[in-house]
């Protein structure tokens, strides 16, 4: 019986999705950097947080991002086998595959959390992923799940 009611955010035209991204320093961050160097266009809705390895992403980071107003979370890391720490992304793969299904089980739309292997050379794949994710989230609208009321 908390006094503040949950505010429903309509999808007005001016709304821009906010996507929080966790990029592994060795591959994906370098790929995103390369995209900038070669002047690739991609939507500016993404906010990239650099992390040592994709396995540094604690599911609590993902939940806190959604609580604090993110509409989508993108986690990117090296392709399995290329991990700078050899086994980091194997743990990420197990952990986030499972966590994604738990989020869907409690009502998150699957597209809200996207995990993608992006190597240092795949600037195009990075830009493509961002474009694709922004479209999907624009279609879905603002995230209501676990969102804190201001």
């Amino acid at each position: 019986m908390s006094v503040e009611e949950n505010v429903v955010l309509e999808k007005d035209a001016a709304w821009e999705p906010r996507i929080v991204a966790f990029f592994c320093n060795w591959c994906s961050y370098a790929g995103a950097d390369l995209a900038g160097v070669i002047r690739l266009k991609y939507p500016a809705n993404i906010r990239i947080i650099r992390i040592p390895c994709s396995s540094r992403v604690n599911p609590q980071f993902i939940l806190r991002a959604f609580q604090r107003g993110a509409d989508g979370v993108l986690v990117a890391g090296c392709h399995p086998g290329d991990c700078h720490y050899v086994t980091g992304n194997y743990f990420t793969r197990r952990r986030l595959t499972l966590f994604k299904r738990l989020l869907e089980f409690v009502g998150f739309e699957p597209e809200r959390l996207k995990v993608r292997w992006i190597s240092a050379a795949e600037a195009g794949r990075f830009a493509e992923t961002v474009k694709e994710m922004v479209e999907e989230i624009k279609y879905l609208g603002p995230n209501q799940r676990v969102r804190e009321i201001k």
Partner: protein
Amino acid sequence: MDSKLLRREKLLPFLDRLREGFLLVAPVEEDALLFYRPVESVAEIRLNPGRSVVPPKEWFFPQAESLYRYNTESGRLVLEETLAAAPAVLFGIHPCDLRSFAVLDAVFLQEPVDRYYALRRERTVIIGISCSAVCPECFCTAYGISPVEGTGADIHLSEVGAVYMVEVLTRRGKELVARCQEFFEDNVAGVAEAKEARKETLSGQFTVQVTVDGLPARLGHLFDHPYWEELSRRCLGCGICTYVCPTCHCFDITDVCRGFEGKRFRCWDACLFRDYTLHTSGHNPRHALYQRLRNRFFHKLKYNHDRYAIEGCVGCGRCVALCPVNIDIREVIATVRGLGE
């Protein structure tokens, strides 16, 4: 105070009429559990309610309540009290919970008065309802509370056959009845006697008799008794017994801040949690679980009595029913009486 009559089929229309002037908070059932919540339509109300899980204290002392907002942008400081309480009617309160409001009043309305609690208390009219059955864990009679008597309510309903006997107990109750006289009739003879008969049948249903006189003094010299350590062996140290207790009033104050803007919150707290009395220096006067459990029972059975001259327990039996490891306050009372000799 005089008493009126309310036909059973007129109860919901009466409550619906009240919704025009008041926010109606009533017992609602969800997954076979009872909660007191603001209702949109009277159809949601569970008539003849049993015992709720979370006590109606939650209406006067919510589990999470914003005290004030602040903004510390550019060196200025803006403080804005978040204090709002709509006029409300709290319907369906049993006699044990009515007594619990008196216990909470002794804490919150004592100087310096807690404005948040006081404002809600002033703006809420309470409609009590007599019990229709006794739960196995109930023992309110040990504290002189009768399952059919409505002290603490503004008007008190007792279901007798096809009608409700309405006792108007306070000035506010009188105004409420005056506001909607068309629902009420003058009292028919025999209704009061039927209520007394109900009281007799109910008093026979109490499974465990508990006597509590002289307990605070007896507890005084049992502080170091090994009984508390034995009792705490099975205790989980969770917050169930304190959060479902209608007279527990402990709270914590925390900040929720985003950038320059923030709110200061008051929220329920439990003396059984590990960090309840943890000092910043790391010293914790009640570091062991048995010390915390002992403090809970001493507060209920002695400290409340010593400090506010009103018993800390109202015998509602919620902690007995909901404790996962069956720590039963009635058994604790009986054991302490035995140890005291």
